[in-house]
Structure formats: C-alpha cells, structure tokens
C-alpha cells in the first residue's frame, strides 16, 4: 500500500483529517484565539501565517493539547480530541527551540517515544535507523545534541516527531532559529519528506516565504481570528483585505474618495478600474503590488499613467525599489520595484518619470483592521 493511500484511509473520504469548529481560548479578558474554524485535509501541508501575537502558537498548543479550548471542538481523524491530554492524542511536534533531550544521543532522542510506548528493542532499533536515514543523519546517531549543528538538531527533532508514525505533524516555527542558507535547504527537505510519507502537517510561522514554499494551503491569522484561507497563489492574487495583502508583501494602497462603474478617484488620482467598489467610506483602497507598477518607457501609453517625481531609489541587486510622487493628486507616494536591466540609465532622485498602475493589477481592498 502506498503512503498516500494509507493516510487517505485514516480520515473519511469527505471530511478533513483535522477539523477545528469554532475554537476559542481566552486568558482573562483577552481572547487569544477567537472562534477559529480550520480544516486540514488529509496528507496536506497547512501553514498558519500571521504576525507575532496573532494567536497562531496558542492555536497550535490547543491542537497539541498543551492548552484546553474554552469553547469549540477539535476533531482529529473523526474523533473529538478537544478534552484529551497530549498523551492521548495522535501527533508529533517540532519546536522552534528543537527541545532535544540533551542527555540522549541522536538515536536516543528518536527512540524516546518508542521506549515510552513499549515498542520492543529490535523493532525500536530498526525504526530509529530508518528514520535517521530518512533525515540524512544515520552517521551521527551516536552523537549528543550539543555535538551537531542547528540544522542537524532540527532534523533530529523531526525524526523524533515522526517516530510514532503520527497522523498529524505539528511544526511551531521550526526553521526560524536557523541561518538563512540552512533554512531554505531544510524547508525544501521538510516539504519533500511530508509528501513522501503523506502525513498531514500543520505549521505556524510568521515568514511568508516559508509559508509560500511549503504550504498546500495557507491560513492567515490576525488578532486571534482567521482572515483568509486558500492556496498560496490564491491568497496572494486575491487577498481578502488590506491586512492580508500587506502580510504577503509590499502593497501600494491609495485611499478611495469616490468611485463609480470602472472609474475611481484615489488620493487625487483619476483611475480606470475593472472593479466597482461597494463603498468609499474611508476604509476602501485601490491597491497594487510594487512589482506590478510600470516605470519609464513601458509606462507610457498604459492606462493610469502619471508623471511623477522620483523621491528615492534603493538598490536591491537585480531589482531597484523606486519611490515616486505623482505631480497631480494629493501627494500619494507610489512604490515600484523594477528590474535594473530594463533601464539603460536609472532615473535619479528629483527627476520626473512616467509611472503607470495597470488596470488588471489594481485590486479593491478594505482595511478591516480599523473598523
């Protein structure tokens, strides 16, 4: 039987492997997790992405059973686990701090859970060497945690979490304590491993790049609530609101003053749009990613083109970030990220250039955080 098939058998065909229904957690008067609904489909990689303090770690601890929900239900593989202690749930967990047992070797860490559950020695040893081969640490099995690198330690933590063949793998910012190089490498390994063994994974992170690169599904969290759920591409292209758009990358937001069918006035700029905003009551914005803004020759002839004075230029390698202020309008500052190679000579600060906001990239977004 293949792994994917095995894992498909576990959950009923239609219902998700992990299902949170209206889960809330309060500390005193502060609601840290606010009626969260979440579905993690079997064998998929779900990322909960949000700024620090948004409640994503508490959410993970609720799923792990380190905290108990005040209301709502947590259903895993068809069973209600809401009130179960961690010991009776079925998951493996990887922490940001690795949390390896310092007094046990690499092999001893991996076999810890197998010993606790009374797996016979021979089976234990077989399983440990298999797992260590899987994470590429077979030759380090006799070493102690302080004798190996951070990346290797996190691989041990991963092998340890998988030792009991859990149905669910929980990852609490597993890569954020590592160097940038190790991080991107381990990220790819993590994704490949998850797909290979077909375990349902749920990772919390504040790093959008990390979420984009591993997730089948991203859940955006803010102030204890879920803002949006969808595939990485989906939420990047059609963010639900200004918060989501900004969390996923830079975003020019021009406040809408008036709008009708296919026309809008945003901070004194007359825009042609292919959306019709429902309202323009101060929290509505016309938005565009800096990468979609056109500058110079390619902007000329495009709709929504304005003459703008360059305010600053930031060299970022192949890409140059340029801030410009349109000559007309109410002083809106537009940020553009352009390829260096598109220009023979870069415009200098103070020069006038043409800047265009192509209609098909303009989004209508609301700032829900102020309301």
């Amino acid at each position, binding site marked *: *039987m293949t*792994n994917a098939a*095995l*894992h498909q058998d576990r959950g009923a065909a239609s219902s998700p492997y992990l299902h949170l229904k209206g889960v809330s957690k309060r500390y005193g008067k502060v609601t840290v997790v606010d009626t969260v609904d979440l579905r993690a489909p079997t064998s998929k990689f779900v990322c909960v992405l949000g700024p620090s303090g948004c409640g994503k770690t508490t959410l993970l601890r609720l799923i*792990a059973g*380190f905290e108990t929900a005040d209301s709502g239900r947590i259903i895993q593989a068809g069973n209600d686990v809401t009130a179960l*202690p*961690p*010991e*009776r*749930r*079925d*998951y*493996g*967990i990887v*922490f940001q*701090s690795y*949390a*390896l*047992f*310092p*007094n*046990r*070797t690499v092999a001893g860490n991996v076999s*810890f*859970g197998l*010993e*606790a*559950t*009374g797996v016979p020695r021979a089976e234990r040893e*077989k*399983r440990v060497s*298999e*797992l260590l081969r*899987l994470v590429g640490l077979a030759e380090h099995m006799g070493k*102690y*945690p*302080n*004798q190996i690198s951070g990346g290797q330690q996190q691989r041990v*933590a991963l092998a*340890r*979490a*998988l*030792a*009991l*063949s*859990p149905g669910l793998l929980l990852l609490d910012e597993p890569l954020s304590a590592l160097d940038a190089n190790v991080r991107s490498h381990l990220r790819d390994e993590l994704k490949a491993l998850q797909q*290979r*063994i*077909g375990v349902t994974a749920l990772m919390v992170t504040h790093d959008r790049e990390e979420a984009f690169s591993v997730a089948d599904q991203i859940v955006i969290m803010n102030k204890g609530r879920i803002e949006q759920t969808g595939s990485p591409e989906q939420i990047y292209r059609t963010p639900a609101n200004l918060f989501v758009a900004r969390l996923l990358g830079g975003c020019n937001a021009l406040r809408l003053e008036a709008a009708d069918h296919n026309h809008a006035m945003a901070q004194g700029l007359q825009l042609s749009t292919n959306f019709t905003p429902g309202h323009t009551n101060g929290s509505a914005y016309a938005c565009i990613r800096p990468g979609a803004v056109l500058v110079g020759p390619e902007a000329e002839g495009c709709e929504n083109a304005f003459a703008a004075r360059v305010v600053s230029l930031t060299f970022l390698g192949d890409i140059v970030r340029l801030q410009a202020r349109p000559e007309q309008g109410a002083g809106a500052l537009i940020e553009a990220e352009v390829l260096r190679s598109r220009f023979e000579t870069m415009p200098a600060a103070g020069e006038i250039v043409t800047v265009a906001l192509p209609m098909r990239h303009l989004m209508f977004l609301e700032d829900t955080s102020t309301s």
Partner: protein
Amino acid sequence: MTTVADAMPQRRQIQRWAPPMVQSLLPLTAVILLALATILPIGALLMRSLFDRHGSFIGLANFVRYLAEPGLSIAAWNSITLSGIATALTVVIAYPVAYAFNRSRMPMKGVFRTIIMLPLLAPSLLPALGLIYILGTQGIAKDLLFGGQLYGPNGIVIASIIYALPHAVLIMSSGLAQSDARLYEAARALRAGPWRQFLQITLPFSRYSVISAASVCFVLIFTDFGIPTVVGGSTNVLATDIYKLVIGRFDFELGAVVGVLLLLPAVAAYGIDVLARRAQRATITGKSVPVAPSKSPMRDIALTAFTAIVCFAILFVIGMAVFGSLVKFWPYNLSLDFKNYTRVFVDSDDGRALIASLWLAGATVVFGAMAVAITGWLVARRIGGGLPRQMVQALAMLPVAVPGLVLGLGYIFFFNAPANPLSVFFGTLTIMVVCTVAHFYTVPHLMVVGTLLRADPEIDLAARALQSSPLGTARRIHWPMLLPTMIDVCMYFFVNAMTTVSALIFLFTANSRVGAIAVVNLLEGSRFGQAAALAVLIMLISIFATLALNSVKFYILKSQPWRSK
C-alpha cells in the same frame, strides 16, 4: 520503495491514560509535609508569645514583661550592635578577598579558596575555641588585645568574622564574577584610569552583592548560638538568653518573646537580601562579556598579600584549636599526645554523640535530598496546579529566614503539645532529622530548582507528546540533568547537619545528643582539650565527606559526556 509508514505497525498503540496522580497528589503531600516541618512550628512559637503559661490570651503582656527585666533587654541591644560591627568588618575584609579571586591574576587561587572555605566545614565553636588558645586568659598572644578581654564583645566579634567570612566571600564572588567587560572597554575608551573604573563601574555593579552578603552575615551572626556560648563571657546576647530562659528558667513564654525578637531582624534581613539579589540580576544582560583581569603587578601583589594574611589568620585560629586538642595540659605541659582523642572513643557519651552525628547527617542527607529533589522538580518543571506549586515554593523559601534557635523552640511548642499525635516523635533522632532538613531546606531546594530551570520547558512538552508520563520524563531526562547538583545537595546537608548546634539545642535528649552539642557541653564544663578534639573530629569527617562526594561528582560528570562539547 520501502518507506517509514510501511515499516511501522499500522496503528500505533495508545497507552492507557493513567489519572494524573503525580500532578495532584504529590504537590499536596509536599505542601502538608513542608507545612508540618516549617510554618506550623513557627506559628506555634508566635502564638505562644501572646499567651500566658495557663493558655489564656494576654496580648503583648509577655513583651512588656520582657522589657521590664533590665538584664534581658540589654541582650537585644548587645545582639544588634555586636552583630552590626562584626558584619561590617566581615564585609570589609571579604570584599578585597572576593575581588582578588575574581578580578586579579593572584596565584594559587585554589589553595586560598580552600582555606577561606574551611570554617564552613567546622562547627562555629571551633574558631571560637582556637581564639581561646590564642587570645584567652592563658592564650599565647593575649597581649595583642592590649590588656583587653577576649571573653565578651571582643571574642564574639572576632570569632563571628571567621565564622561568617566564607559566606560573605562566596556571595560577593558571585557578584564580582558576573560583570561586563564591555563596560570597562568603554571606560578605557573614555580615558578612565583603573581607580576611576573601580569607583564608577566595579563598586556600583557589586553593591547589591555587598548588601546581600551583609544581610546574610548579619543573620548568621545575630542568630548564632555557639560563639557567644564559648567566648561571650558575661555579655548576654539574644541567642544565649533564649537558651537560658527556656532550659534554665523553664519560662517558655519569655523564650517565645526572644524567639520573635530573633525572628524579626532575620526576616527583615532576608527581605533586603531578596531585593538586593533581584536588583543584581537586573544589572546583568544575557549579552554580558565576562571580565578577564588585565596585567597589573602592583594590584596583584597587594591583593595576594591581603588574601594571604586573611588565610593565615584562619589557618592560625583553626590550627590552634587543632594544636590545643593535641596538647597534654594547656598551658603547663605543651607536649603532644592523642589523649583527648582516645578519650572521645573511650568516653562512651562523647563517642556515642559522634555516632549520633553520623546518623543524623546520614538521615538528613537521604531524606533531605529526596525531599528537595521532589519539591525542586515540582516547582521548576511546573508539575500540578499553580496554587499548590506556589505554596510548595513559599514554604521551601521560608526556613532561610528563620533562625535555627527559633525553629527548634517552635518544634518544642508544636511537637511537644500533648494534643499533637506527632508528639510520640519528640525527643527522638527522627524529630532532629526533620528539624535539620527543614532548617537547611531553602538552599538545596533552590539548587535543584536552578539546575532544572536551565532546561528548556519545551523539552517536557516534547516528552508528553511522545507519550511519556511525568515520572517517566523525570527519570529519563530530568534526573540525569540533576545528578551532579544532587551531590552538591548531599554535601550541603551533610556538612550542615554535622556542624549545626542552634536548631538542635532544644531538641536533644541524653539518647539523641549529637557531636556538635557534646562540644557545647564539654565547653560548659571547661574541658577545652576534649571539646577541641571532638570539634576537630567533626571537621575531619566533614572534610572527608566533602572530598568523597566531590570525587563521586567528578565521576558522574565524566560519565555524562553530553555536558561538554
């Protein structure tokens, strides 16, 4: 392709979920036992000070009666002033020594440190005895007092300094050890000379450890019973008065009053110590770079000379006690023999007391170590509910603020009450073991908490997620981490149980008399040579135990390669 899931049993076995007995029952048991050993006896003493001997409430009438007796209230004044003077001198002497250990390139630091710490291994009576041989009426250097008397304020102050010095050096060393080299680099960049650096960086940054050392030494000296008994002469202090009132006059009510008077300054000093330590911690950041002493021969010569003089004084005093124990008949026949030592073993009483000391120390080590391992684990790894855990911590912190004499007297009031079913233990070695464990509980409890707090709390969560029970995690993860600290805990309990007098002076009977108390009794009978011999034997046993336990610790550390890189 074989994969992990293929190789595994299809469903993992989920262990039966045991009700969390450990989390609920253990903290509760700890609270009850700790309360019985600490707060209830202390409460009994506080109550007693407010009642008359027939058991009716009389408010503060006992305190009024105490103040009305002129001889008694003078003792309070003596205690405060003499302890104050001795504390000030101790700190002044200890600071340069601690500075030499941490901020100089003094040679032979290990040797000096061992000598400075030597008084910790002997009863406080031993330096007092040594002083008698040096400065007493028949002492070899009594002229050093310029016609003054050893017995009285002089003797109390000098002996107290030797007794308290190791504590002061230890506390101030930890304060001077944790400083930030970057501050000194910044000061040099601003062209501050060494003297200015000392005044504006070293001194301000170590001031909290000085305050901390002063309050600890004050309590030690203020509540010590041994020194004023031996060299106090006719100078009354609270610590000797409480004994006379209770044992001599059977006036338990006034005894309780003196107990309260001993307790209050001790609690106040402890409060100051806690605040000072908190402030000290706040001055250190995680990024601090330790200071490496620069080259400065003048400084090193001066500090080495000073430390050497202090060490010589300690060795001289202790050495004279040892010498006195070997002398045939001081001061008339100075030829040496082991008569005083053989007499300890021939005299069945003193020999029996020494054996009782070993039993007491052994039992204190076993039960004390077990208890602090459990309470420290409960507190550090957050086992069980918040409230019982906080109560365990509060009760474990209590004894350090309670003088041994006060605790011992409280034990009389609490355990000797006819209504108390536990009174069957009164007068036994059992109650003395309980009292000794309680008396010295705080420091080893904190050692365990400190060690276990160093481990990431997420380790426990990881273990739980891997279906390990709290006790399973304790056995397989926490215990190996704790093991070397447990050796320090055993050492602390053993040495203190061997040398303590104050808590036990009220609790012993003819059958449960221990060595350190036998020394007091011998001194009361002016049998100095025998007293010195017994005190030296206690010190030798302590030294031997320390060496033995240190080598055990060495082998434990060697067997735990995961500690080093």
